[in-house]
């Protein structure tokens, strides 16, 4: 069993957007939207955590059967690997264990690891990419502005 993964930086680019990770495999042209626990998983892989550390973290922070969480974790890791988004990491040292903050003591229910695959960007429009946001994060306005 593989113990650690890393982002497949060869063909994969990604962005964090509104608490979602949007990843694109530039070789296949497929888009992936990772939300909720799956976006958290992505960021844990990015910060060099081992599968065991990640599993321990989710069991500590999610409300649900620990075996189910572990088993679903392995399923999604396999899917991410098959999509070419992550690859096995044979070289890097793991990060220190993930600390569970006080706020995480109140566990969120486990709703699975949600990844959606798009072969074109039509449904990604739902992520609202078209609006004209200026540097301050506001849609650009014209005319007399309220200061």
């Amino acid at each position: 069993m593989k113990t650690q993964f890393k982002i497949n930086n060869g063909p994969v680019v990604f962005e964090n957007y509104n608490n979602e990770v949007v990843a694109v495999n530039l070789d296949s042209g497929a888009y992936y939207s990772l939300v909720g626990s799956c976006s958290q998983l992505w960021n844990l892989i990015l910060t060099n955590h081992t599968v065991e550390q990640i599993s321990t973290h989710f069991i500590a922070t999610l409300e649900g059967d620990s075996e189910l969480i572990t088993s679903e974790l392995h399923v999604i890791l396999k899917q991410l690997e098959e999509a070419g988004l992550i690859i096995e990491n044979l070289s890097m040292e793991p990060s220190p264990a993930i600390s569970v903050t006080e706020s995480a003591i109140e566990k969120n229910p486990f709703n699975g690891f949600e990844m959606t695959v798009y072969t074109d960007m039509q449904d990604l429009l739902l992520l609202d990419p078209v609006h004209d946001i200026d540097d301050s994060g506001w849609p650009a306005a014209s005319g007399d502005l309220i200061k």
Partner: protein
Amino acid sequence: MASLRIAHIFEQIRLGGPIYALIGLSKHLVTIKPDCHRIISLLPADPRAVRQAAAAGLTILSGPNKTTIKQELAKADIVQVHFWNNPRIYAFLRAKNPPMRTIVWCHVNGLHPPHILSQSIFDFADLVATTSESSFSLPVLCSQPRDQVEFINAGADFSRLDGFVPTAHDEFTVGYIGLVDFIKIHPAFVRMCAAIQVPAIRFIICGDGNSLKEISRQAQEVGILDRFTFIDHVEDIRPILSQIDVLGHPLCEETYSTSELALQEAMFAGIPPVVFPYGGIDRIVSHERNGLVAQNEVDYVRAIELLYHNPEERKRLGKNAAIDADGKFGSQRTALRFEEVYAQLMQKPKRNHRNSFQHSEYKKDLSANPGAWEMIHSLDNIGDEDFLDSLTNSDTQAELAEKRISHMGPNMRNHILQYRIYYPNDLYLRVWAGVMFSQSGRHALAAAEFKECLNNGLNSPRIRRYFDTAVSLCANGTVKS
């Protein structure tokens, strides 16, 4: 007398004004039975809209194939195209269809790109009907034969408000009803809400749309989220209207809006609106008679404050709003106008629609980058300069044009994406989508667009630079062209 059979062509049936207008219209047309309205939604329809249409006895064909569409067109006495500028509607206008009598009903005012009323619409149709009187200021309308253009307002179905009674409530409530999207709403919407100096004010936002999250984020950022109530699209609008003191309906300057059914309904219910004079709105709201028309953001804020402090004025404007809505709008009036134009159309034989899309110059343009050229042609020489510069000029000039494209407003950005999705192999549409994504901070999506261009032969130095920049700004930022 046998009922006429009307085939209605929509890009996609969704919940909202157009389907309600059609349902209301069908109730009042005496020469057409409801089930003789055949509504063709070129894209799969929203099931909620299908249910509502079915309840009114209308038939919706959701995403039918070409054979079915042609059969429906052949059987129809009249084909009514519901026009917004989008690639599917233009593809329909270009298609080789059976002989038809056609009316194009424009649900956009045509005042701003991309929702231009192009000459090709007039070349196609036996009759073009606008839904906004403001469209008659357009040169393209002025140059048409007078008997080929009509104004037919899309009227709200006021029977939806039967039994409406305002309810008592503690907080002064400003409502917005309709599409929640910055392609329609004023960009400073939340900022204006925050500036209103009224104690215990509440904002109800009722409707679907892509900007719900953004409005919520902005309200959070300025600390007024607790004053907002978001309500999904509702079938029965009465409980929402009953809580509203003022309709705050500030649309953006480039709005394509015309009849604004939600505005008509609120006015009919005696709720005074505060609006901007953009699009067709100032033909609906008369300043200081049945509502207030703000000229700028400060004006909008002051207008809401004025209506809070002057309940008698609010009452007066609301009363006039109800009188004017009842006297000018409503689906019964729309039906009477359509009875006339349908009768007029039935005097004509069905004909083949050989139109401007057959011109040789047009065809020549389409030999390369057909999607980009289709989009440009749909703009009919209005606001298309930057796209032409991008397509036809040197790297330096093209880059300047693409920088301007990246800063275009929400409506044009939405338009580019619609064409980009419809023509996924058109590399220039990908460039334009890519520069737009880059500007919006969507660097992974931008990188994907530029990579596709590089892989397929559009590999000029500027595209390689766009790609490298997008990748470097992605969260991982390591891929190289």
